[in-house]
């Protein structure tokens, strides 16, 4: 395994603060400590070349896990081995081999062009001239950034800035790249370009660990999903299994020639009744078979149009988040 995490826990101390005037004044003198169990003994392994999505609601422990894996935080207990390094203990040697993109924290310099920031990274990572030039040109072409890298960062669109963040994180050719919400706030075209880039780099052998709230990132990129909630792993498997986790359900949109029959039957949940002739519903195949449903509606109302879709991944995630 490239990354091996065993029984990782993180407890940190914060302070309770009241909202009333009296409590605020009191908190100036006495503060009540509060111990937050951000991670409660999580374990997982990631092989070289994997592209793993980390999901979880706010405060679930995703960022804490990512910060421990990037050597920023010490855990309270547990063991982590990444490429033979313990991130927080061997930080300097270790981080030379990883890259990180934080969607909400820029490594670029606001008033000067991204290329100047790239040169700063070149010096920090001691990247030889030839390697730097080749890597930068290659990534600039992949991300379609030819003229962009020479404009001041403040003049770039959010999408262009994020693409430059990727170059910044990958100029030193890291073996693993950690992505924390890399597509936050981007338009569809920019998201697509970045996803293409990630997939291209992944094909070349770079391992990606991605945390996001954008489930379409997960659907487009990750072959494996780890869902964290309340500091524990509640799911660790493929996207297909994640969909099935919600149950063997289909989303059906139906319109008919005659008014629809009464559909209050076990296994059928009408989610939207558009008119007497048109509705959207969820069909639980374990309870009510699809062919029986079609036969029922066609016989009673004559089907004009019918579409069957896979459930949205959001529904499966909601089930896990509620656990």
């Amino acid at each position, binding site marked *: 395994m490239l990354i091996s995490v065993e029984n990782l826990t*993180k407890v940190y101390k914060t302070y309770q603060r009241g909202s009333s005037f009296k409590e605020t004044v009191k908190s100036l003198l006495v503060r009540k400590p509060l111990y937050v169990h951000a991670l409660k003994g999580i374990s997982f392994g990631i092989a070289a070349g994997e592209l793993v999505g980390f999901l979880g609601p706010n405060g679930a422990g995703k960022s804490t896990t990512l910060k421990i894996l990037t050597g920023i935080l010490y855990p309270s207990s547990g063991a982590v081995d990444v490429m033979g390094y313990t991130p927080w203990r061997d930080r300097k040697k270790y981080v030379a081999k*990883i890259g990180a993109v934080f969607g909400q924290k820029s490594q670029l310099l606001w*008033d*000067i062009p991204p290329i*100047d920031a790239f040169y700063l990274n070149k010096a920090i990572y001691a990247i030889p001239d030839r390697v730097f030039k080749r890597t930068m040109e290659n990534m600039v072409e992949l991300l379609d950034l030819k003229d962009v890298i020479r404009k001041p960062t403040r003049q770039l669109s959010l999408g262009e800035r994020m693409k430059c963040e990727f170059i910044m994180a990958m100029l030193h050719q890291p073996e693993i790249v950690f992505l924390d919400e890399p597509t936050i706030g981007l338009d569809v075209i920019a998201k697509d370009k970045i996803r293409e880039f990630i997939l291209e780099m992944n094909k070349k052998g770079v391992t990606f660990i991605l945390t996001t709230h954008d489930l379409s990132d997960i659907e487009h990129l990750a072959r494996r999903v780890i869902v964290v909630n309340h500091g524990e792993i509640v799911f660790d498997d493929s996207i297909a299994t994640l969909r099935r986790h919600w149950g063997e359900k289909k989303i059906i949109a139906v319109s008919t020639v005659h008014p629809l029959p009464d559909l209050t039957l076990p296994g059928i949940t009408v989610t939207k009744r558009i008119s007497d002739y048109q509705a959207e519903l969820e069909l639980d195949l374990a309870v009510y078979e699809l062919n029986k449903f079609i036969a029922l509606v066609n016989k009673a109302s004559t089907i004009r149009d019918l579409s069957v879709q896979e459930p949205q991944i959001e529904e499966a995630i909601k089930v896990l988040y509620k656990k």
Partner: protein
Amino acid sequence: MRNNIRIYLVGAKTALASRMAYRADFFMSMLIMLLVEMAAPLITIMIYQNGATFPGWTMYEALLIQGVFLLGKGIAAPFFFGIVWNTIERVQNGTFDLLMIKPKSVLFMAIVTGFDAEDLGKLIGGTTLFTLALSRLPMPGLGEWLQFLLLFLLTLAVLFGYGLILAGLGIVWIGNFRVYQIFESITNFGLYPAAIFSKPLQTVITLVIPVAILGSVPATVLLGRPSAGTIGAVGVGLLFLLFSLGFWRWMLKKYTSVGG
């Protein structure tokens, strides 16, 4: 070492380029820095021109002490004291993490990314005052220059120590920019000859809190009349540097153990 110097120079170049994006503001800031720093020497000149003195010190001797003090700060401010603002701001807005994902010490990265170009105004002011005051005094001998250079290196080391303590405090006292004002208030005692203060205060600023080492101690060596307690001040300065390095590491450990 050579690689670190190269990184520092690239960092300084990018910081200067960033600052040059707003040239008018940059030059105005430099000028304001210079004028603010010159306030104390101008007051000193006014005092002497009105017949008052710092007992036992001529005007140019007093100005030399202030020149050394401002020269020290003029070197520290642009080249390494930026760790204070850089750390406080980065901890507050969450970008301190970005320094920790670079394969260098966090302190070094805080220095590289904290180069403060507009503080070069302080360096210009300090150099001018030092040169001007020295030109009006008997030229020191080689031995005095050597002793001065060693003590001035310690001045810079002590200023670095102050920077480490203030930056370290910025890690735990989130967004507390007032720490710099406390530093300014304490170190301003270094603008004047230590001998003009009462004996207990002289002891405090020489042997307890290293303030006299910032101006009075190295300048008086250059003037050929070393301050009382110079050797003690050297010891205290070195201990202070060690303490501040330990303090920074302790605060950094506190940062890395807080939650995400």
